[in-house]
C-alpha cells in the first residue's frame, strides 16, 4: 500500500504541532519516522489513522484521496496503529483481548471459543511467541503484552502497521523475534512505519527514514546513504557533539556496599559496592531482577537476608522513608505510575520530595517552595509554561527532568536511576547524561540500570551484569563491549 501525506497542518488551540508536514510510504518497506519528542511523529500518524482531523493538507492511499474519520475506518482500509501505551484489557485473557470486538460467534451471538483459540494459537505460532492464549494479561510481562498487541494487528490482515516505540519494553530476544516478524511481513508486501528513538534498531531494520522537526518535514533518506550523526543533526538542527558526554570526576571512598542480599525468589546473594563519584551501570535482560534489586535496596521490596552498608556503617532499610533518610534517591523505571503525580503540577511534584526543605514545623513556606521550583525549572531546563504546568501534559523528556529535579534536591549520597532515558528523545537524553555526570562530579555514587547497551557502555565506570537474579559479573567499562556484556547477561562466562 502506498501512502502519501502532503502539506499537513494541525493545531491544538493556538499551539501548532504540525506545519506543512509530509510523508511518503512505499509498498513493503520498513520506514522509520524520527524526531525529538514533540516533533509531531505520533500526531502525524494519528491524523493518518483518523484519531485527529487535519487542519489542512491531503492524504493519498494508493493514489486515491482519503480522509478517515476514526481509527476503525483506517483499520478497515488496512492501516493499524499500535500505540506506545499498551491498549490491552488487563483482566481478560490473551485470546479475549485478541478478539475484542471481533469475536467469532456461533448462532445467537454465542462465542465460538474453540475457533477463537485455534486462530489465536495460529497467529502466536506465526509470530514465534510462546504465550498461552488463555493466560490473563496482567500475569504477562510488559514485553509479552506488547507481543499480544502486535498479534492483534496481524489478526486484521493489516497492510500498513504503524508501531510507536514497540521495543521500549521488550527484551533482547523478544526484540529479535519482533524483527523477524517484521522482516517476514515486509516480504509479504506489508509496509511498516516504525517510530523509535533507538538509532541502532533503525539502522538494523529500516529501509528509509523520514525526519520531522518542530512539526515540519525535514527530509527522507535511504538508510544506506546516511549516518547516525546525520540523522541526529537533521533531528535537532544542530550538532550535539558527543553522544555520551565526558565526565570529570574523581572516584573516592566507597559509599554503598551490599552484602548477600537475597529475595525469596527474585534474586540471590547480591554483592556489590559503589564509590563516591562513580557510575555503576547495571545491565541484564528484562526480568533478570535488576529493578527488583534496586527496589530492595530502597526498602520497597522485602528481602530474606542481606546487609546494606552506607559509608561503612550498616543501615537497616525497611521502607522508602528510611532509604531517603539514609541518603538514597531512587528514580524509578516507570515515571508515569511511580515517578510522578501526573495530575499535579511541576511545583507540587518537586516540593513533595522536599517537603522538609519548603516548610517550617510542617507549615509550607510559599517563598521557599517557589524558589526551589524556579531553580528546578531553570537548572533542568524544563520546557513548560510555569511551575503550575500539570506534569501529565509534559513530554517524556520533560517529565523525566521533573523526576530528576525532585530527587536531586534531596541531596542524595547515592542516586539510583532505573532506565533514566526510556522514551526520552536524543536532546533530552544528553541533558540527562549531563546531570548524571554532574552528580558524579559532586561525589554522589550513581547506579544506573539500563536496557540500552550503548548507554551502559558509554556512561558507566563499571558495569554489573545480572542474569536470573544472580550477578554474573562486574567489569570495568573500559575494555568492555556489547558482546562481553551480552555473554554475561545470558548467563555465559567470560573467557
Amino acid at each position, binding site marked *: 500500500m502506498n501512502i502519501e501525506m502532503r502539506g499537513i497542518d494541525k493545531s491544538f488551540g493556538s499551539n501548532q504541532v504540525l506545519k506543512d508536514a509530509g510523508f511518503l510510504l512505499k509498498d513493503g518497506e520498513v520506514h522509520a519516522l524520527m524526531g525529538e519528542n514533540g516533533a509531531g511523529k505520533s500526531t502525524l500518524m494519528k491524523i493518518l489513522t483518523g484519531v485527529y482531523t487535519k487542519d489542512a493538507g491531503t492524504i493519498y492511499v494508493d493514489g486515491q484521496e482519503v480522509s478517515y474519520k476514526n481509527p476503525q475506518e483506517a483499520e478497515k482500509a488496512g492501516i493499524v496503529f499500535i500505540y506506545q501505551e499498551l491498549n490491552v484489557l488487563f483482566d481478560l485473557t490473551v485470546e479475549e483481548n485478541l478478539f475484542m470486538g471481533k469475536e467469532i460467534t456461533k448462532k445467537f451471538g454465542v462465542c465460538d471459543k474453540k475457533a477463537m483459540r485455534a486462530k489465536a494459537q495460529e497467529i502466536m505460532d506465526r509470530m514465534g511467541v510462546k504465550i498461552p492464549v488463555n493466560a490473563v494479561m496482567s500475569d504477562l510481562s510488559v514485553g509479552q503484552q506488547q507481543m499480544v498487541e502486535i498479534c492483534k494487528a496481524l489478526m486484521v490482515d493489516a497492510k500498513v502497521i504503524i508501531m510507536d516505540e514497540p521495543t521500549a519494553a521488550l527484551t533482547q530476544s523478544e526484540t529479535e523475534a519482533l524483527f523477524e516478524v517484521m522482516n517476514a511481513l515486509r516480504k509479504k508486501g506489508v509496509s511498516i512505519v516504525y517510530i523509535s528513538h533507538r538509532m541502532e534498531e533503525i539502522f538494523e531494520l529500516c529501509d528509509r527514514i523520514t525526519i520531522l522537526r518542530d512539526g515540519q518535514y525535514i527530509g527522507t533518506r535511504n538508510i544506506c546513504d546516511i549516518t547516525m550523526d546525520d540523522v541526529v543533526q537533521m533531528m535537532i538542527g544542530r550538532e550535539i557533539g558527543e553522544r555520551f558526554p565526558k565526565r570529570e570526576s574523581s572516584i573516592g571512598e566507597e559509599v554503598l556496599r551490599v552484602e548477600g542480599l537475597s529475595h525469596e525468589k527474585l534474586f540471590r546473594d547480591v554483592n556489590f559496592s559503589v564509590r563516591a563519584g562513580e557510575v555503576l551501570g547495571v545491565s541484564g535482560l528484562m526480568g533478570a531482577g535488576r529493578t527488583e534489586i534496586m527496589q530492595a535496596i530502597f526498602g520497597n521490596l522485602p528481602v530474606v537476608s542481606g546487609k546494606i552498608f552506607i559509608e561503612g556503617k550498616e543501615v537497616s532499610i525497611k521502607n522508602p522513608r528510611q532509604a531517603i533518610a539514609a541518603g538514597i534517591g531512587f528514580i524509578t523505571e516507570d515515571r508515569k*505510575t511511580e515517578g510522578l503525580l501526573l*495530575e499535579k503540577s511541576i511545583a*507540587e511534584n518537586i516540593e513533595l*520530595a522536599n517537603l522538609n526543605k519548603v516548610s517550617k514545623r*510542617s*507549615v*509550607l513556606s510559599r517563598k521557599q517552595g517557589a524558589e526551589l521550583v524556579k531553580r528546578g525549572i531553570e537548572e533542568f531546563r524544563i520546557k513548560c509554561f510555569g511551575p503550575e504546568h500539570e506534569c501529565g501534559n509534559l513530554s517524556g523528556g520533560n517529565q523525566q527532568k521533573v523526576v530528576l529535579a525532585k530527587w536531586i534536591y534531596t541531596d542524595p549520597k547515592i542516586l539510583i536511576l532505573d532506565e533514566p532515558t526510556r522514551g526520552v528523545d536524543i536532546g533530552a537524553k544528553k541533558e540527562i547524561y549531563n546531570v548524571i555526570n554532574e552528580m558524579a562530579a559532586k561525589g554522589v555514587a550513581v547506579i544506573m540500570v539500563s536496557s540500552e547497551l550503548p548507554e551502559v557502555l558509554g556512561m558507566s565506570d563499571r558495569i554489573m551484569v545480572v542474569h536470573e537474579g544472580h550477578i554474573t559479573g562486574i567489569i570495568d567499562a573500559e575494555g568492555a563491549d556489547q558482546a562481553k556484556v551480552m555473554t554475561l547477561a545470558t548467563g555465559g562466562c567470560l573467557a
Partner: protein
Amino acid sequence: MNALKNKKNIGAVLGEYGAFIALALLVIVLSIIEPSFRTPSNLMSLLRQASFNGLIAFGMTLVILSDGIDLSVGSVFALSAIICAELLMSGMNAVLAVLIALIAGTLLGAISGLLVTKGRLQPFIATLITMTAYRGVAKIITEGKPISQLAGNASGGDFFFKAMGKGNVLLFETVKIPIPAIVLVVAFLIVYFILTKTTFGRRIYATGSNAKCAKLVGVNTNKIKIACYSISGFLAALAGLLMISRLDSAQPTLGDGYELDAIAAVALGGTSMSGGRGKVTGTIAGVLIIAVLNNGLNIMNVSSYYQEVIKAIVILVAVLSDSKR
C-alpha cells in the same frame, strides 16, 4: 503554551467557582420567589442546619481526597452521641463526657482507617462494615431507646448542653449567629489551612493522587489515610454532640443516611471521587447548596417526595457541568 494557559484559566474559574455560582443563583431565585426565605432568622436557621452536614462533609473531603470513602460517619455521629449521653446520665461531668465522646469518635474513625490500611480492605467495604457495626453497638447500648433530658442531667459545663447546639452569638446586637455555624467556620478554616498550607495536606493529595509514587518519595501513606479517617471520625462525633445538645436527647437512629448528604456535598464541590483532586472550599459550597435546597423547598411547601427528586437533579446538573470531571 499560551493556549494551554488560557484553557486552564477558563477551566479553573469554572472548576473553582462553579459550585459558588450555582449557590448564588439558587439563593437569588429563592429570595425572589419566596420572600420569607431571605429573612435573617430563616438564613440563620439554615446555617444551623448546614453545620451538622458541613462538619461531616469536611471529614469526608479529607477521606475522599486520600482516595477513600467513609460510609461510617452517620453511625459514628450516633454512637459518639450515645456514648456522651450515657456518660452524662451516669453523672459524669459534662466537659469530661464531651471529651471522651470526641476521643471515641476519633478512635472509631481510626478503626476504619486501620481496616483500610493494615486490613487491606477496600474503603467502601471497610466503612460499610464499621457503619453497620457502630450502628448496632449504639442500639445495643441504648436497647434501642432514646435517652432524653440530657441538659437536666448534665453536671458542670452547662454551656455544652444548654447552649452549644441551640445557642447563638449576637453580632452587632441584632444578628444571632448560631453557635454550630461558628464551630463550622472554625472547622472550615482549620481544614482549609491543613489542605493548603501544611505538609500534611500535601501528603493527603499525594496519597490520593498516586499512592505508589507518594510512598516512593517517603510519604507514609498508611499513616496519612488513618489520620484522614480519624479526623473524619472526630468531626462526625463533634457534629453528633452538637446535635444532641440541640435536641436535648440522643437516640441510636441519629444521623442515619448522613453519609450520603456528606458525599453529595463533596461531589457538588467538585472533588474527584478517585482522590487527589478537590478543595474544601468546594465542599462548603456543596453543603450550602444542599442546605438552601432543603430549606427553600420546605418553605415553599414542596412535598418531601418531590424534594428528593429535585435534590437529585440539582446534584446531577452540578456534577455534569463540572469541567474537571
